[in-house]
């Protein structure tokens, strides 16, 4: 590791990231926890913190222009609709999509369910219409996912298979935390029966970034649709969905410095045009008669009811905030923190990384286990030191089972984290080992990297 910046400043691609200055934008980061300890927030993989700019955008909107969007003709309704659609436009541009390819949902989980239920609806009875036939699934069809998925990109597909009679297949994970794409077994996972290939852009546990191009290539070769879980990539790195060539993608606002209660489904325009609706009701219709209804073009078709508005505006502000920093800079900064955390944690006796041990094709989630120490107990000591990490299976139970661990500790970073916080984590892990007396005997009890 030669690229570790000594303190807070990170130099990346000519841009300099002043972490101390960034932190001033996040009021919550200056609070203390557990009897006056400075907060060390290393749980952005679960949810990120929000800068003043996002909070202000929401408040300003609510104080000046709040109204139900896409209804009414009064001044506020007009302003609210403009603000909502302007947010959509900026969010679309942020991920390399066209404005009509961005559907607002409650969160990424709902976005993935929207696709799964849309396909489900296309598979029921006579289907919805001719255009939706392309999404019809039934016995003999296969849906492919991977062993490293968050439950949100696994359970909806299990359920889709259960409802339609299709079969679920998956790629396994190798011991070093990569997808097994090349074993004999893996070679046949995607085949002529495959209709959907759903996979993560970055594992929320391992940090692994699978080869999207290769998976898209294999899916396209057999005419299968790709669904990308981009929850852990869009907040942390430049993402161009058109360039990636995926058919659908999902991400959440609250993991990218934005509000909770807002997520995004991206769908290629042609596919959203053909996909049946998931939730139905107001806003999403074209013509309603007692005998039946027709539906609005996307994205409105998938936004039934009065949508979340200040949240969309907040997410627009989050995208502006991240764009002003530059996603290359964000990525480079987190890459340095991740690299340092990997090196320093592996230097500790008894600590094992769950996932790739270098920063190659890997993002900023660092999961690990400590010999002789249950993650819950370790996190209690970390918490007592003011350090917030995630423990458990991180909604990726099959992945933990594949690694033969019941649970793990995960530190995850965002643009506001500093190298000092990586050091605090390492010191906290040592403290936990000392507290529970599980430091391997050859190791001196104090000193060293802490």
């Amino acid at each position: 590791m030669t690229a570790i910046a000594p303190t807070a400043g990170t130099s990346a691609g000519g841009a300099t990231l002043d972490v101390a200055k960034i932190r001033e934008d996040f009021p919550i980061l200056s609070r203390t926890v557990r009897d006056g300890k400075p907060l060390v927030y290393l749980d952005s993989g679960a949810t990120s913190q929000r800068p003043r700019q996002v909070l202000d955008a929401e408040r300003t909107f609510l104080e000046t222009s709040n109204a139900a969007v896409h209804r009414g003709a009064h001044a506020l309704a007009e302003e609210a609709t403009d603000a909502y659609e302007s947010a959509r436009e900026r969010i679309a541009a942020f991920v390399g999509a066209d404005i009509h390819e961005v559907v607002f949902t409650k969160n990424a989980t709902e976005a993935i369910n929207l696709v799964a239920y849309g396909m489900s609806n296309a598979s029921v009875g006579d289907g919805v219409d001719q255009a939706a036939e392309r999404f019809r699934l039934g016995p003999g069809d296969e849906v492919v996912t991977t062993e490293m998925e968050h439950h949100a990109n696994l359970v909806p597909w299990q359920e889709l298979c259960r409802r339609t009679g299709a079969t679920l297949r998956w790629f396994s994970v190798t011991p070093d935390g990569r997808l097994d794409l090349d074993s004999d077994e893996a070679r046949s996972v995607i085949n002529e029966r495959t209709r959907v290939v759903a996979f993560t852009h970055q594992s929320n546990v391992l940090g692994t970034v699978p080869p999207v191009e290769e998976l898209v290539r294999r899916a396209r070769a057999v005419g299968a649709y790709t669904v990308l879980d981009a929850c852990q990539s869009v907040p942390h790195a430049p993402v161009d969905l058109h360039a990636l060539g995926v058919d659908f993608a999902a991400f959440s606002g609250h993991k990218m410095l934005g509000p909770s209660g807002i997520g995004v489904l991206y769908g290629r325009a042609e596919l959203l045009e053909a996909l049946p609706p998931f939730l139905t009701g107001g806003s999403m219709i074209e013509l309603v008669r007692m005998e039946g209804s027709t539906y609005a073009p996307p994205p409105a078709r998938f936004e039934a009811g009065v949508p979340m508005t200040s949240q969309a505006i907040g997410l627009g502000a989050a995208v502006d905030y991240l764009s002003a920093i530059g996603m290359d800079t964000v990525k480079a900064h987190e890459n340095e923190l991740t690299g340092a955390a990997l090196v320093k944690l592996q230097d500790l006796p008894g600590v094992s990384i769950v996932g790739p041990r270098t920063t190659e094709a890997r993002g900023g989630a660092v999961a690990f286990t400590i010999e002789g120490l249950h993650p819950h107990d370790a996190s209690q000591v970390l918490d007592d030191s003011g350090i917030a990490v995630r423990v458990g299976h991180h909604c990726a139970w099959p992945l933990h089972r594949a690694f033969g661990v019941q649970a793990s500790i995960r530190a995850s970073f965002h643009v506001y984290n500093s190298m000092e916080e990586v050091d605090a984590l390492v010191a906290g892990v040592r403290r936990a080992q000392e507290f529970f007396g599980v430091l391997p005997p050859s190791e001196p009890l104090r000193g060293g990297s802490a």
Partner: protein
Amino acid sequence: MKLDSMYQEIILDHYRNPHGRGLRDPFEAEVHHVNPTCGDEVTVRVHLTGGEGLDAKVEDLSYDALGCSISQAATSVAHDLLVGHTVGEAFETLEAYQTMVQGRGKVEPDEDVLDDAVAFAGVAAYPARVKCALLGWLAFKDAVAQAQAGGTS
């Protein structure tokens, strides 16, 4: 330090040297409980003898557990406090224990009833850990219910 009040020596002792661990015969019911947020698991068997309902005696509570120190130690303490008592007495102890660990630190534990289990009073200050402390105990309750349902049906 709060940490010490949670991880009292009694808890760490039970964690390192659990009492009554292992699955034994005979038993009338076996249950498997998990904590879905962290993946902790416990398998509990109960062996009941004598009377019916609350009068039955808890002859044995055997278990196999994977989990943190709190859940492991709590199950070990449950074994100590519940075995040899009637189901009625065991449920009273369980209720006192549950009230204490769910009490957000506002419940004064009854040491006469709870004995070693009072050590878990500190857990009440950490809501995220209450499930850990209850895992084995609630599995016991479920196992008794199943054993008695099976016995009467």
